[in-house]
């Protein structure tokens, strides 16, 4: 299916140095519409660095990013968001002291003008939040609940809801099921499948083979900062992918 769908995001020859350390070297990546790409690799293989480059948090030392066929230079996460590229971070990147709705719209709050002053439109935030959570079938007591009062799975759901609130085309998820209770993992994976069915391209970084083999269409392995192996999911096996993580083909 992937080859026929439109190519959304492509990274070519991404290289990233931190001082004398080479975190990434000549890494390539592609993701299509409605496709889920799994990215695996050992700790320090460069997965998180690659995602931070894709989201505009880090600037690559070399290489280029293409979005829908056009080259883009990302100066900040704002740039990638404007393109429709969203990131769900491992540490969830939610402000626990704020309610769900305000987290989902953080940095992009709807406002209303009163005279020449702009005020937050709390009513609109609440309406949009409820509608969006409803769409993704995410159950919470109310959009006014503070995020710190939620369970890990609910927080992850809010983080994913946040990433898709603005018609995202590509969503990147860093270990979306780490730190979740087993019964919550399934809900999050369902949510990822739901995103795929709406045509969103998803990149999932995960250590968990169960996750990869439940939601992904294609899997690629990074090893010591380089592309190590890549395959359609139905043409590989868990044992082979685990081997890639350890640097064995």
């Amino acid at each position, binding site marked *: 299916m992937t080859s026929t769908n439109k190519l959304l995001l492509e990274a070519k020859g991404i290289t990233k140095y931190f001082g004398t350390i080479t975190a990434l070297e000549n890494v390539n990546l592609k993701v299509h519409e409605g496709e889920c790409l799994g990215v695996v690799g050992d700790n320090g293989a460069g997965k998180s660095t690659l995602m931070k480059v894709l*989201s505009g*948090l880090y600037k690559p030392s070399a290489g280029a990013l293409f979005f829908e066929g056009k080259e883009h230079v990302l100066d*900040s*996460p*704002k740039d990638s*968001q404007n393109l429709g590229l969203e*990131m769900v*971070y491992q*540490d*969830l*990147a*939610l*402000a*626990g*002291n*704020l309610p769900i709705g*305000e*987290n989902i719209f*953080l*940095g*992009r*709050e709807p*406002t209303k003008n009163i005279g020449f*002053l*702009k*005020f*937050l439109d709390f009513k609109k935030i609440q309406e949009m939040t409820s509608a969006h959570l409803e769409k993704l079938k995410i159950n919470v007591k109310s959009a006014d609940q*503070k995020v*710190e*009062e*939620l*369970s*890990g*799975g609910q*927080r992850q759901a809010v983080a994913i809801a946040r990433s898709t609130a603005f018609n995202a085309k590509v969503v990147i998820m860093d270990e979306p099921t*780490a*730190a*979740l*209770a087993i019964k*919550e993992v399934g809900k999050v994976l369902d949510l990822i499948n739901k995103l795929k069915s709406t045509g969103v391209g998803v990149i999932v970084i995960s250590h968990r083979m169960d996750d990869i083999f439940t939601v992904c269409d294609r899997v690629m392995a990074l090893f010591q900062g380089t592309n190590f192996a890549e395959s359609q999911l139905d043409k590989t096996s868990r044992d082979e992918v685990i081997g890639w993580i350890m640097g064995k083909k």
Partner: protein
Amino acid sequence: MKSLVGLWEKNKMDDKEKKQDSLYVKLIPYFEKYGILLLLVIMILVMHILQPDVFLSWRNVTNVFKQISWQSMLALGVFMVIVTAGIDLSVGSIMMLSLMILAIVAKAGAPWFIVVLVPLFAGFLCGLVNGLGITLLRMPHPFIMTLGTLYIFRGTGNLISGGTPISGFTDEVRYLGHGRIDLTWLGLEKSQYLPVSLVLIAVVYFVFWVFLNHSRTGKWIYAIGGNPSAARASGINVNKILIIVYSLCGFLSGIGALILAGRTDSGYPNAGLQSELDAIAACIIGGASFFGGRGTVLGVFAGVMIMGILRNGLNLMDVSSFWQQVLIGSIIVLAVYVDVLRRDFGTRK
């Protein structure tokens, strides 16, 4: 790692969720919001019982407001900084430097509207220096930058004034700190006036309440305190917001200088000495969390009032100022302990 463990424990607690929804838990948010006002009301009642003739008299009440007027400006500024999980130790020095500049400009014979604007501008610039230092110089913690400027600003104030008081301002300059709004048209006596500084406190606090709760920038200030990396990942320019916060804190200290100039009719080297600690204390008593992201403008106002009433009441009862120090210190510890308890009960761990 800590957060991972925290999340895991939270999941464990899912099953217990229903049990937790007791009346007690439901009351916590209200307690969190209005508990400090309750304390304030209790204090007022106690003081009234102890000093029935004096404490709630028109004269004494306006006196309390006049006394807290400039401290309330510093506390509000420091509060915004604390919400971002920062700290500003330099507010007392900013106020002193702004006051000295005001005095010098006034003595040089500048028109009153210039004299009034100068401390606000000076305070803003001092705050800007703090903000730029913290962000551009990448100081490991705002404590260090503002500890440095605590000395720098006060030293500068002494340098430009020669370390001697400069006294005598015009009525226009003194209006905000010393002015009276006559209420005889309401049928009140001449002595029952409204201090202009009280109106100023109300206006400034209202404006900043709107700013912090109803503007995007205000929301982002809370977000930065809640989780700076979340704010950054949301595309918020964290450094820019921090610079705004420290600049506004300096600006409020400048307003404090203007009020103090009105009250004392003098620029003096010891102005605002250690007042940064009072400002921090008021924020903490008022429920602001040092970890950032928590606290309300109303709470800070209550914190300032509690400290003001405590001092005033103890003075009325002729209690030694040494006891005042002991009591204020105890209230700080108690207030933070209540915050610790609230964290234990109020949020999942």
